[in-house]
């Protein structure tokens, strides 16, 4: 039971962490809660279903399932990145120097738009992800671990590690850190802010797309409204770890997944969605800057 919940929690936590990274990166650079980020995750799940259905009709799935899956992943990631990029250009860029509230409300608008956009084009009913991978798994100290779970945990770990490498080692990662620290100074030393912001949105959306697709495989069901609650929880995870901090988002995501899984098993599953918020309120009450965040003094 304990090990089983641990594995379930880690799976869920990996997904939350991937989404939370997008929130934390955008917040670190623009100080904006990107409400539409949860919808990107939802788009990723939908696009996965759409592309896989397309490959099935074309006959690629029957020819080679791994190839079809890889292509589905790649295409979903590309499309979600394009969506993230476009959303930033249309809804946030014109508001870059506007008061703080404006981009937040704009983001809520984008979120409502995307939800209804998917509902209108894909229908309001649940979409089923074809059950391609049997529920096979391995026994592990009395717990059953499916291959999908192993895949999700491994993929999230690999993605998080490579993101960390990207942020710390590459030129673009360095530019991102510089912009997050001080936009004006960064632009003075020749960093193109627009490019960095676009790159942030593209990377964040790509991670969310992977998360969405993996959840679609894991649960087998997708609905146009999944983005909202997942987005809120991922944001909670980002705040938990200290928003703006990348290791914080990873840690927060995994922690939240574990808490949710254990409390649903040992306390009550009816209030499954409420635990995230209760934890959030408690954390913010005790340590408003999050576990890994630096507390900011307000400048006068």
């Amino acid at each position, binding site marked *: 039971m304990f090990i089983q919940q641990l594995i379930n929690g880690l799976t869920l936590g990996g997904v939350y962490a991937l989404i939370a990274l997008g929130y934390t990166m955008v917040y670190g650079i623009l100080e904006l809660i990107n409400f539409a980020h949860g919808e990107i995750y939802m788009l990723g799940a939908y696009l996965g279903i759409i592309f896989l259905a397309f490959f099935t009709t074309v006959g690629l799935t029957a020819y080679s399932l791994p190839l079809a899956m890889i292509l589905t992943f790649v295409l979903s990631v590309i499309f979600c990145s394009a969506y993230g990029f476009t959303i930033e250009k*249309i809804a946030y860029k014109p508001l870059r120097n506007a008061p703080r509230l404006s981009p937040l409300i704009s983001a809520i608008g984008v979120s*409502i738009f995307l939800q209804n956009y998917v509902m209108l084009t894909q229908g309001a009913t649940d979409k089923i992800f074809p059950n391609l991978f049997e529920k096979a798994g391995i026994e592990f100290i009395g717990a059953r671990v499916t291959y999908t779970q192993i895949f999700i945990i491994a993929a999230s770990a690999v993605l998080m590690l490579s993101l960390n490498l990207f942020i710390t080692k590459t030129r673009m990662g360095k530019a991102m850190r510089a912009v997050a620290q001080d936009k004006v100074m960064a632009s003075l030393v020749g960093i193109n802010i627009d490019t960095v912001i676009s790159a942030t949105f593209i990377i964040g959306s790509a991670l969310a797309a992977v998360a969405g697709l993996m959840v679609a495989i894991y649960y087998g069901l997708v609905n146009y409204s999944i983005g909202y609650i997942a987005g809120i929880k991922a944001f909670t995870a980002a705040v938990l770890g200290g928003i703006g901090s990348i290791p914080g988002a990873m840690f927060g995501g995994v922690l939240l997944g574990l808490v949710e899984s254990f409390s649903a098993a040992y306390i009550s599953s009816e209030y499954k969605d409420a635990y995230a918020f209760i934890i959030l309120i408690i954390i913010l009450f005790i340590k408003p800057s999050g576990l890994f965040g630096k507390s900011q003094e307000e400048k006068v």
Partner: protein
Amino acid sequence: MNTVEHKIQNTSPPPPHPLPQGEGDSFDIPSPSRGEGEGGGGSLNLFLRPLFIALWLALLFLPFRGLKAAVILFIILFAAVSLLKAFKNYAGTLKDVFVDVRKSISSRIRIKLPESKARSTVFILLMSVIVLTLPFYGHDYLIDIAVLSGIYIILAQGLNIVVGFTGLLNLGFAAFYAIGAYSYALLNTKLGLGFWASLPLSLMLVTLSGFILAIPALRLRGDYLAIVTLGFGEIVRLVLNNWDSFTKGPNGIGGIGPPHIFGMRISGIGQFYYFVLIFALLAVFVIRRVAASRIGRAWIAIREDEIASSSIGINTTAYKLYSFAFGAFWAGLAGVLFAAKMQFVSPESFTFMESVLVLCMVILGGLGSIPGVILGSIILVMLPEMLREVQLYRMLALGSGLVLLMIFRPQGLMGGKGVSFRG
């Protein structure tokens, strides 16, 4: 303060290229030709950029509805963006003409100023006659919408106190609305208390819950506050939804009694209209007076600059607390009226979308503007009713409308220019 703000805003956008930032260009989709400048773009730019934008958006749409729909979208978008672009090229000259015309008009109007004041009095009189006699000529459906508008006016005015005056973003305002509605529903059905007995109890409970939320929330800065209030809203909804033995869960509570006045049962929709109207007028009157008082001025000072206001001796924590509780109070009143009108409450009426809708009313009308918020509430209650035929698309319109509003008119329909938000 404002000029300083402007200076900061003017210096802070770091120009990546040494060329002027596009004049509010909202469609900066990947444009390789951006460097070529907007002035000497010529006809090629006029054609290529819309083509590129339309192609890009149609491509994004492609997987969702297939090739045919994407091509149609492409054609529509291309036409629309080209027209916009062409219009924009002439907009500069048009603007000059507008300014000239406006100047000449305003120079004439200035002489007639007293008359325009008289005109506004006539307008107010006319409006009040229309509002007061509505049940005599309107049919039931219209009155029903008007009653709903009245309830939303109270609710939105409550949120206006928190967001508009004090500048604290509350994304879980529906929670207070829900607490008000459920406390009346429960007091009425479980304890058999009448409207007038449960009203003060409900309002006390709501105000108390406003205080309770405010205590952890007020330690937080803008965005965190927004998320915590959102979380509070969700927790309240989840509790209402899952506490089956007490709130009957998702089935909701039915059979709530209507209010009585002097032994007279208020059940007809026309009677209820006046009932709500009195409360709405009371809300507007009281909020106006409070906003003009010392407390209201303190709220506005906190909104404009929290540090400066605390340094001149305003107890910011206390005033933010009042703001939360006072806002919650009106939301609770709206909730009680809602429960009394519908005679049924269920958690479905108090979702996050409800909070967003109320926020939209406040923003559309203009943050901190009382007449604006009244207008915003009426528009957003009426609009979905009028758009019943295209109901599927109204949320799509609401979403894109919010984005466009923020880009083109962030102060709302009647918001003042002075309102600024940093949170």
